[in-house]
């Protein structure tokens, strides 16, 4: 009893003391690994606007684009800024998978200070509206009948698009082609033009094409059904026993920053995720809120990396780590 009282008192004193010990005094930089308009860039700019609107950060925020090397340039940039207290970066799963396949990408997320996981981006499996496939089973059965003839458009071979394909091929024994396109627009154009038969797409992008009657969704790559697609089965519900690999976005900081600095960022992001504007942003974009603290994040790294390494090796991708 007394012990817990002392503990509670201690906490009551410690928390404000911790929060007060670091306050940013100059503009905060958010480093992203894409150019303007890329996914991480858009998120960072939206965060900047929200932090300003909700007045949870006393200074201005600026976004720094460090594109290149599939996240390697931005990760290395953060690693070089050892001890920098006014800088955070937005990471995605690419920051974990890229060092697996690229010997040059030497900096891994483990070399940076984890701050928080913010959200997961679910995806859906879409076909053209006039395609003969009504369910994911139809598609897989057709692929089984004509091995290698059906095609899927997607990003690079290490992207989630291809991971989903690998997983589905493994459990079903079917085989279809995966064609890489560098831009999201080209992937959609390839599907709508009838040059490929299937793609993994973000629910929001698919939403407008469904509304216009151009696309049909067969299944969703998530653990539970998304609010906007109440009648579309998840992969498991569709009869495919695969664990969806999450597309994750979170925040890291340079290595070697003081503990109160970590606490400040954690606290700031926690506050951000509780604001109305954030909730609206997440709902509008059909993301899954998935806040995790710095400590939980480290565990997530390991699970995710191990899962990806297995999948990539099975897909015949050469891993270097």
């Amino acid at each position, binding site marked *: 009893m007394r012990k817990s009282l002392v503990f509670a008192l201690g906490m009551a004193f410690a928390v404000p003391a911790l929060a007060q010990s670091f306050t940013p005094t100059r503009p905060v930089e958010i480093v992203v690994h894409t150019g303007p308009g890329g996914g991480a860039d858009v998120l960072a*700019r939206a965060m900047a*606007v929200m932090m300003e609107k909700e007045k949870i950060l006393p200074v201005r925020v600026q976004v720094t684009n460090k594109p290149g*090397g*599939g996240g390697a340039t931005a990760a290395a940039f953060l690693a070089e800024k050892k001890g920098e207290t006014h800088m955070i970066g937005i990471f995605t799963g690419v920051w974990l998978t890229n060092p697996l396949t690229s010997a040059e990408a030497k900096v891994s997320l483990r070399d940076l200070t984890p701050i928080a996981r913010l959200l997961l981006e679910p995806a859906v499996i879409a076909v053209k509206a006039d395609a003969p496939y009504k369910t994911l089973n139809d598609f897989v059965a057709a692929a089984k009948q004509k091995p290698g003839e059906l095609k899927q458009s997607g990003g*690079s*071979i290490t992207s989630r698009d291809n991971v989903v394909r690998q997983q589905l091929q493994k459990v079903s024994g079917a085989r279809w*082609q995966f064609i890489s396109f560098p831009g999201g627009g080209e992937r959609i*154009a390839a599907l*709508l033009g009838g040059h490929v038969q299937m793609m993994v797409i973000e629910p929001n992008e698919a939403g407008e094409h469904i*509304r216009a009657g151009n696309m049909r969704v067969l299944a969703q790559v998530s653990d539970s059904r998304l609010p906007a697609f109440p009648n579309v089965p998840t992969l498991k519900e569709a009869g495919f026993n695969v664990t969806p690999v999450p597309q994750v976005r979170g925040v890291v900081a340079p290595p070697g920053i003081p503990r109160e600095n970590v606490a400040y960022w954690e606290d700031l992001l926690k506050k951000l995720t509780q604001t109305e504007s954030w909730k609206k942003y997440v709902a509008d974009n059909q993301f899954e809120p998935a806040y995790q603290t710095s400590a939980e994040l480290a565990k997530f790294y390991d699970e995710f990396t191990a899962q990806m390494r297995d999948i990539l090796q099975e897909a015949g991708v050469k891993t270097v780590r």
Partner: protein
Amino acid sequence: MDIAAGLLQGFAVAAQPANLLWCFVGVLLGTIVGIMPGLGPPATIAMLLPLTFLMDPASAIIMLAGIYYGAKYGGSTTSILLNVPGESASVATCFDGYQMARRGRAGAALGIAAIASFIAGTVGVIGIMLIAPPLARMALAFSSPEYFALMALGLAMVVLLAGRSMVKALLSMLVGLWLAGIGTDLFSQTSRFTFGRMELLSGIDFVVVAIGVFAIGEVLANMEGREAAKALPVPKGLRNLLPTGQDLKDSRFAFANGSLVGFFIGVLPGAGSTIASFISYGLEKAVSRRPQEFGTGVPEGVAAPEAANNAETGGALIPMLTLGIPGSSTTAVLLAALVLWGFKPGPLFIGENPALFWGLVASMYIGNVMLLVLNMPLVPLFAQVLRTPAYVLYPVIIGIAVVGVYSTSGSLFDVWLLAAFGLLGYVMRKLDYPSAPLILGLVLGGALERALRQSLMMSDGSVSILVSRPVSALMLSLALLVLLIPAFGKLNRLRLQAIEK
């Protein structure tokens, strides 16, 4: 009738004083950003995004689009005056633009560029207005085999960019193709020619090579002799600083050619304005009555690529507005902006937001007029830059080049690369290797390889996919025809000689 009503509604939106002001702010910012190498429209638009939340969405999109097409006007300025291409789409403008400046016709070149931009920009808007939705659907029929054929057609232009020696031109192009292969391979995720350097993982930025080979190479070559280091001639009198009637007459086909080529290539999500400007330059030279004078400073050599890269803007907005598919990094930022403002860009966007769409279209007509009015008076002013003595001008050019490259990537590695390519440009000049084919190979190499490998994956390895599809077969035959042009030229000369005898 629908279009007339829509346009009327659009002008009602665009002609509101506030929107006129935002349109002006946009095109002015665009011109400035276009003139400065390095800082491009995508970065500018991204930086202004927070500001647009305080604005009415119609005003905001009018301003941001103004930056986009305004930058294309400004992009030619440094190409013509300093041989520093401000963005990849202005490289082809260097070929004849800078030569015109060296012959004391900088004003005329800048004027032609502004007029070409105006005509093509307007053609682009008319295109959006009249045929956007059907055209977007047609563009979807374009797939990897067609892209491969388009890139092959572009690459065939090398025979038109070659100087005296075809072998040297081809060697130069091969180096360009090799440079395009550096980086991470999209299909297998393996690194190629990165020499263990992380900075090379995403390849070499085209702007670094273009600025190095053109601008730095030119400065180095000019510094050799006192003779060449003299300031360039700038004629006195306003009349001599503007294009003549003869210039406009020479360029009239180029205006049309550039506008159409630029617009149609712009609609394709996987192509881009750089390819459009090269193809339109090549086409202009191929049909010209004086092809041998291209590269020495002919106005139509400026008009064609400038028109193409401005018309491309109109074309590139079409897949974004009608399908929600961005074809370039700028349209990707614009798309992100629409999403952040709460719109749902996609196939239903125009139908559900007619005021916004038509307001944008109308503002682009107004913006293009503003740009012409804004840019023409600047022409004589900019032409004075060349009066600067060489000992001031050359360091300034090198400074602009370094800042431009550094501001694109923020990486010092790229500045060292710039120096290396500057030396390469100098050596190539000394040994009489043309640099344009190198740039052509670098620009088209990546897309060419991707399209070929995608095609072969689609056909499970059968090459016939490239020739069995009508559009791709047609373009490949065109490419073959272009390749044969030098042979025709030779035959023709032989024939003429025979007649003389």
